[in-house]
């Protein structure tokens, strides 16, 4: 079943707008739609409700949107680079590296700003890039990156780092719940500072990926074929891996490990509008943002007033869908 591209994008835009409206309306505190209109148009002054809408709900929506779009785009690129529709943004060890960084900070109890930045996202960002860098170095031989080795190195490095993280969690038992919550991913601490932290990476990364869309198409033909069509395969691979690592690391540093979105979103978009990346990119960005905002609404409201980690929601929605895709593929 293929949708026409325009119809698909139109439906996504409508759904995204509806999801954003829902996300502003729903929450632990009931605020009537007319009050929210007043607040958003800036006529409500500094009431408590205005603080909730502007200080809590809006940054949370924008952050979910950016993280969802980033993971969707990064997943799309990696699926093309690996020529495997089941690759995801965490394939090169980013999730495990970020978790290790976050766990260290939580166990050590650091909370003061480092270089003017929150230490937690900073450590997660550094951990993520460190893990990705290690995996690249392991799979780089004679200036070429072997995709197969990259996959195996990703699994091995992730396993090693996860073991280290578990060890740290056992050592710092009293912080177990905080670490666990961080690893499951979520937007409960969302603020405008985090939005500003991730926005440059998201925007620059997505613009760069956009300029590589035709190269991604050619890349799907295989390394040799891509070179026959004039692509500098190794250079393109390196650039794309670096960009997706930065994009994913930035997203993970503010939201934790939110699984399945980077895997399912590009895959589903490809099933619906085909593999041409010049279209697929917009599909993946919008669908990623939509899925993330809906998941966050569920995370906030399912057990309100307490929160469910978003990563749990995306796994519960994503895993069955993934199994369905595997089943379809197997037939």
């Amino acid at each position: 079943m293929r949708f026409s591209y325009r119809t698909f994008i139109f439906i996504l835009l409508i759904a995204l707008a509806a999801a954003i409206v829902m996300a502003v309306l729903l929450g632990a505190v009931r605020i009537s739609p007319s009050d929210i209109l007043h607040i958003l148009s800036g006529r409500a002054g500094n009431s408590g409700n205005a603080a909730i809408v502007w200080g809590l709900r809006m940054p949370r929506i924008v952050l979910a949107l950016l993280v969802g779009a980033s993971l969707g785009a990064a997943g799309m690129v990696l699926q093309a680079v690996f020529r495997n529709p089941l690759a995801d943004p965490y394939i090169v060890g980013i999730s495990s590296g970020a978790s290790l960084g976050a766990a260290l900070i939580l166990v050590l109890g650091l909370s003061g700003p480092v270089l003017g930045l929150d230490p937690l996202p900073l450590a997660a960002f550094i951990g993520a890039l460190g893990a990705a860098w290690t995996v690249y170095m392991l799979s780089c031989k004679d200036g070429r990156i072997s995709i197969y080795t990259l996959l195996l190195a990703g699994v091995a490095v992730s396993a090693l780092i996860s073991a280290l993280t578990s060890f740290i969690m056992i050592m710092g038992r009293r912080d177990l719940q905080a670490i666990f919550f961080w690893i499951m991913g979520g937007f409960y601490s969302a603020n405008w500072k985090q939005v500003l932290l991730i926005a440059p990476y998201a925007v620059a990364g997505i613009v760069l990926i956009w300029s590589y869309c035709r190269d991604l198409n050619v890349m799907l033909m295989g390394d040799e074929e891509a070179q026959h069509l004039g692509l500098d395969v190794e250079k393109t691979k390196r650039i794309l891996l670096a960009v997706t690592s930065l994009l994913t690391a930035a997203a993970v540093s503010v939201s934790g490990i939110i699984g399945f979105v980077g895997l399912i979103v590009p895959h589903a978009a490809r099933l619906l509008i085909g593999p041409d990346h010049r279209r697929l990119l917009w599909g993946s960005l919008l669908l990623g943002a939509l899925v993330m905002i809906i998941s966050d609404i569920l995370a906030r409201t399912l057990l309100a007033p307490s929160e469910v980690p978003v990563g749990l929601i995306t796994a519960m929605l994503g895993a069955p869908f993934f199994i369905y895709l595997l089943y379809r593929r197997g037939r």
Partner: protein
Amino acid sequence: MSLLEVKGIVCGYGGKPVLNGLSLTADRGLLTGVIGPNGSGKSTLIKAVSGLLSLSSGEICLGGRRLCNYTPRALACCLAVLAQDIHIEFEFTVREIVAMGRHPFLGRVQREGLSDKEITERAMVETDTLHLADRSVTTISGGERQRVLLARALAQQAELLLLDEPTSHLDIRHQVGTARLLRHLAAEKAIAVLGVFHDLNLAARICDRLLLLCDGHVLAWGTPEEVLTPDNIYRTFGIQIVVERSRHSGALLVEML
């Protein structure tokens, strides 16, 4: 000066040379066929000339310029390759695949223009694949895919066309069609065609020159009459043949005994 000059190249995989000091030339307007037994280095030759292998010695020049001095993109503008057994798992339409032949001519974010679309369309007409244009490339047959990839190579409008067994999956109608097309490209458009062929009769019929490979070096090089002799074939393939002229077409016929 020949368009393609291969001078004494030694190359292979992982330090083991497959080609041992091989030399050849390919000229505009000529169809050059490469024949030889399995493992004699035919596909390696195609890979070397397409710039995928690094040479341990010797050099390859295209249009008077060494191959290693081309960027991949500049190379793809003058050299197109139809490789063997390409599998495409992603559901691109046939038209999208053929249009990829225009990739090296387009800027980073440039879309295909009217002339690119015309070139794509014509390449599909010439390879009898236009009726497949909107089909997914994952649902067509092996022979159809081979023609689609030939169309993609044509869309590159290259001066040198490298073909690794371009007719291996084709039925006889499309074998004849492809053979005619290759002759036409060489004769009318002055393209240099270098192709690997397994079918000696087909090679004898359409090629201007033949190159007989044996263990990574050239055993014979010349017109089909000069190359396809019982002696040469016995020395390379180890089988007895007789060569005669067809009473109907006048073409060279190779018959295994």
